[in-house]
Structure formats: C-alpha cells, structure tokens
C-alpha cells in the first residue's frame, strides 16, 4: 500500500522526456491491469453495492426496495451505533497501547543473532499459524468457568466468569487479540531492526552509548516507518476484528463487546436488516480511510527522504 503511493511522486520528479522511460511507463500501466481487475471486482464493485444498499430496504431474502435516507436516520439515531463506535475505538486504542511496546521489544530481541533466540522466536510466532476461529474456540474452552483450565489445574483465581462479566469480557477480548497479533507485528519489527546498518551501532559504541541509549537514539528513530506501517495495520485492522469476537463472545454479554464490524454482521445477517447494516459498512469504510490517511500523514512531509543519508 505505502509502496504504491510512494512510487508515484518519485516517478513524477524524474525528467519524463527520454523515450525508454515512457515506454516503460506504458508497460507498467499494462502490468497494473490484473491488480486493477481484482481491485474493481473485489473492492470497488462491492463497495458501490453496499453504498446503494444503504439507501434500500432489504431483508436479504425478498425483493429490494428503495428506502431513501430512512436507514441512515434510523442508524444514526440508534444508541447502539455509538456504543459500537465507542467500543471499536476503545479496543483500537488499548490494543495499540498493549501490542506496540510488546511487539517492538520482541522484534528487537528476536532480531539479535544468538542461537537460542531462533528457538524462542519460533515459539513466539506460533499463534500466527492459528486461525482466529480456532483461537477463539480454544480460549473459550480454556476459560470455561466450570470445566476450563481453572478446574483442570486447580487454580481458583482463574475461575472467573471471563466471558460473562462485561468488563472482564472486554479485557479478555483485547488480551486474546494481542495474543494473536503480537507475533505478526513482532515479525515486522524484526525485519525492520535487521535493516538498520551495523555501522550506526558501531559508531554509537565508539561514542560511548550503552544499550539503552542505542535503543532510544538509533533503533527507535530508524524504525519510524516500521512503526507507522505496523500501527496502520493495527489500527485499520482493529476495525475489522470480527471472527475472533464473534466466536468468543458473540458481542455479549449484553452489548459489551459488540464492536462496529460485529454490529454490522448481526444487523445484516441475524436481524435481516441489510439496509442499516450497509449504513454501518459505509461508516466503517469512511473511518478506515480517514485513519489510514491520517497515519500516512504522520510520516511527515519528508517521508521520501532517506534516513540513511551520509552512510
């Protein structure tokens, strides 16, 4: 995503007069066709469909009728929407706060070269191999207050009503999301750290900087774009957390984990209200786009500038 955006201005800066470059550009345009085709079929067309449906009344089974702005008014007047929005942002922010430091530190750690780290890294990456539904079912079984881990191991403090008390359920959802996604972001940071030239650390050592100083003055600034990428994935991704929460809590207890994506699904496919569900889908798209653009801007105006100047 960030690559596609960044190549465009760079190409524009180059003198566009020489013939080979022009030829190349035509060829490149051709090459985008398959991608464009998939993007149209799987992103633009459904998006247009959802936009149209948000002005229609449809139960998912019978005929589609026009509804004007009714869906929009009813959804915007529904306190359920604001509850879902609040929860979505809460989960997004807390997830970011929990996941970023952990994955950053783990990433730096696993980027090291000692032999035992490779073995540990494999363990850290295990959750990445499991599907969300499987993770949710496993946690649900482990946390069952009567037949779960607590009873099995005889640890009474674990025997909480994890998924039955609103606050606990919300905390647990955030925990399980972190458990599942930290490995992925660790991988991103690991790659980022390995890209940092050794010479920077060598120079810092000569200047007398310790490990902690090296981390804050070299590793962290060098990882700026990695952090932005990882955060974008985390923040935009948290808008679509669905499968895990759906299986784990189904949005309950009450509405305490009913985030926007889940609210959309339940309205559309459980309550047969495709119109209002499409309104929520459109809201999700708008929020997602706005957040992605905002995070891209965070990179600053000099984002094309190299961090490795002088090396």
């Amino acid at each position, binding site marked *: 995503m960030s690559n596609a955006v960044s190549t465009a201005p760079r190409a524009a800066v180059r003198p566009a007069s020489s013939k080979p470059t022009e030829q190349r550009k035509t060829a490149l345009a051709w090459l985008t066709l398959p991608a464009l085709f998939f993007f149209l079929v799987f992103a633009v067309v459904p998006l247009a469909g959802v936009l149209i449906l948000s002005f229609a009344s449809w139960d*998912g089974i019978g*005929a589609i009728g026009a509804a004007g702005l009714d869906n929009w008014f009813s959804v915007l007047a529904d306190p359920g929407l604001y509850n879902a929005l609040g929860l979505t942002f809460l989960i997004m922010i807390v997830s970011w706060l929990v996941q970023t430091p952990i994955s950053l530190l783990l990433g730096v750690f696993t980027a090291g070269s000692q032999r035992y780290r490779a073995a540990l890294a494999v363990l850290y990456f295990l959750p990445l191999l499991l599907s969300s539904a499987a993770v949710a079912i496993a946690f649900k079984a482990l946390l069952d207050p009567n037949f779960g881990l607590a009873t099995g191991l005889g640890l009474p403090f674990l025997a909480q009503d994890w998924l039955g008390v609103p606050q606990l359920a919300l905390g647990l959802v955030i925990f399980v999301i972190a458990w599942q996604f930290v490995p992925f972001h660790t991988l991103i940071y690991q790659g980022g750290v390995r890209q940092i030239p050794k010479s920077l650390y060598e120079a810092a050592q000569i200047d007398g900087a310790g490990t902690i100083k090296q981390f804050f003055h070299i590793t962290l600034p060098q990882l700026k774009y990695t952090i932005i990428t990882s955060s974008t994935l985390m923040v935009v991704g948290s808008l679509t957390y669905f499968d895990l929460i759906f299986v784990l809590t189904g949005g309950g207890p009450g509405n305490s984990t009913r985030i926007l994506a889940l609210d959309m699904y339940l309205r559309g496919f459980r309550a047969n209200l495709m119109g209002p569900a499409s309104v929520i889908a459109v809201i999700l798209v708008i929020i997602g786009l706005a957040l992605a653009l905002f995070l891209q801007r965070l990179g600053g105006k000099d984002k094309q500038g190299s961090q490795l100047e002088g090396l």
Partner: protein
Amino acid sequence: MKQPQTSRRSFLALAALTPFAVAATSACGTSGPGASSGGGGASMWYLSGEPNQTTMQKAVDAFNPANSADKITVTYFQNDAYKTKIKTAIGANQAPTIIYGWGGGGLKTYAEANQVDDLTGWFDQNPDLKKKFFPSVFGAATVNGKIYALPNQYIAPIVLFYNKDLFQKAGVQPPQTWDDIMSLVKTFNDMGVAPFSLGGQSRWTSMMWLEYLLDRIGGPEVFNAIFEGKPNAWMDPAVIQTGTKIQELVSADGFIKGFSSITADSQADQALLFSGKAAMMLHGSWTYGAMKKAGQNFVQNGKLGFVPFPTVAGGKGDPKNGVGNPAQYMSISSKASDKEKESAKKFFKDGILTDTVIDAYINSGSVPIVNGIENKLNMSEDKEFLNFVYGMAKNAPNFQQSWDQALSPTAAEALLNNIDQLFLKSITPQQFAENMNATLGK
C-alpha cells in the same frame, strides 16, 4: 521493438490470469452444495449433534439405496451457525433443496419472498401422510392459510429437569410454585450447589424462562397479542412482572455463576446438571436424549427428574400450558429443479418418518409427532419421560411455539439481545418492555 514485446507479454499474462479471476469470482457463487445439480437427488442441510444426526443419517442411509435416482445428500451444521447460514444461502439463491427450520416467523419470511414451495396441494394429494401427524403441528407450518412445510421429527416442549440425587441430599421436593423455586435457590446455594444451570450465552436458553413465566403470569393471550403485532402489546404489565421475577432470580444467584459465558451448543449446561454442579435446568426435551448419551448412566439410573414449569401465585396461565417447538419443519426450495423437488417429496413421503426413524426417535427419548405411538412409548425404557412429554403435547390447552421462531427474524434478534441485557440486569424490566415494544410490526 521492445515496447510491443512487453505489452504482448503483459497482455498474455493478463489473459492467463483472467480465467483464474473468473473462476475465483464464480467459485464464490457455486461453492455451496446448492441447487445447481441437474440430475436427480436432493440436497439437505441438517443439524449436527446427537441423537438427531445419527437418526437422520440412518433415515438417509435407508432411503438412498432403495431410491438410487432420488439420492439425498445431507450436510450437517451446528445449530447456531445453521440459523445464519440458511438465511444467507436462501438470500443468495444457493439454498439446498430441502430447507430445515422451525416454522413460524422464519418460514413466513421465506414464504412471502416465494423462496419455498406451497405444499398444500401436495398434502391434499397425500391425505394419508397428512393424517399421520398430530393436527396441532401444522400451525407453525402454515402461512396465510397455506402449508409451506412438512412437520417432522418430534415435539420438543421445554421441561424443568432436576437432579434427583441432589434433591434427596437436600431433603426437598421439586418446585410446584415460583415461591418454591425461590426457597430452593436458597437451599441449594447454602449447600454450595448452583440452583439452575443455564447456557446464557446462547440467549434463546434464557428466553425459555421468559416464555414460561409470561404464560404462567399473564396467560397465552399476552404473547398472542405480541405475535399479532397489536399496539403496545409488549407493555402489558405481565411482561414487566415477568422481567422483575427473572431479575429477582438472577439477584438471588438462582443461575450458576458464569452462566452468561456458557453456550448451549457445547452442552456444558447439561453437563452441569448431570455432574451434580447444578440442581435444576430448564431446557428443551431434546436434552433428555443428549444427557442419556453423554451423562454416564445418569439418565439410565433414574437420576434425572422432570416436572412441568411451576405456577405463579395470582397468575392467569393454565399450569398445563406448554412452550417449545411443536415440531421441526422441512420446506422445499422454490429455486430447486423439478427433478430435485420430486426427489425431496419422495423422501418426505417415504424416507423421513418411517417406522425405523420413529423407533430411533423414541429410543433416543423423544416423542415423534405421529399418531398411534402410545404402545411404542409404553414399551420404551424411557416410558416415564416419553409419556410425560406426550401428555404435555396432548393435554396442553395452549402450546406456545418458541418466541424466536414465532416472531420475524428482525424482532427475534432484538428480543434475544434484550433478554441478554435483562439477565445481566443492564436494563430494567420496564426498559425491556419499551425496547421490545419498538419492534412490534417489524
């Protein structure tokens, strides 16, 4: 020279990719075991979980070899997942030939969208088949005076089960009134046993409590008015009284700790009852068979007790009234081919309620919805329970279909959501009634 080369190559690449793309897009459309096979036979989706799955498999295995031109292909799904999947499939015109369901509001949605076939004429042609069933079971299969589904399987009233060992240990009798319930709650809590098991995360499990309570307090008229969408039907004082009683029970720790994290699909609620962690459970009669299978001789040794739902002092409802599923239903997708429809009808007629299947239902502790089974019930090792259920089916002045099935899917989803909040005490009974009142006519 370079340019045409590259573009030809990329064009070829595009040409090579396009079929994949088309295949990928069209695969989404046909991947379901849909109605597109041209030949004979019919597809059916059915619920997983015992003992139903084995019984249905037996029926299909018996039917298929004898009817090789009308083979039935059956796929099994978990209950909660199936309810969503079938709706989506029908909306996408990818439904199986035979659509399994619970009649009522869901069936009405399908019938009004012309997604299921009108079977009235077919039943008129097969009067013997029609006469086979309890007459009452056609109610939930009928939409605007036309029959859209074949009733099948068994009657499934909601029953108050209890663990006889625990009652003996506590020296108490099963409840007959709501006051008995409240005093038993205290007795069992003092003993360190949960009074009631409940799979609250499934929500329809909690709904069963409201169904009975509302009937006992206000009589069947209250829900009938709701069902007919009469203005302010949910604001009936009986609804608010029902909600108040439920919250009193929740506050008195009537339900097992952590009930809202237990799902019915995992059958953990049943395990709590037969493992002695909970003393009572309000649940569908189908759990009798499931507990017989999973409960390590708990049922076989006569430890499982059952009583009708208690009365409420001053209530209007007849204590003989029942709630639950009058039957399960099967419709035929209107989008299926004629050949598939014929196969399905043949299966309806010859395959679904054969003597073998009826015996299998009785053996698994259920009462099939066919006439003339008294002898078979009496010969069964589960005759005590079977006669209890049969008597309920036969003698109930009113048998209320489960609310989430009777109402439209839109109202049902709102109902389940509000019931969940009512049990969590995050809304008051008054708010519950108001929230539900807003769904009338939807």
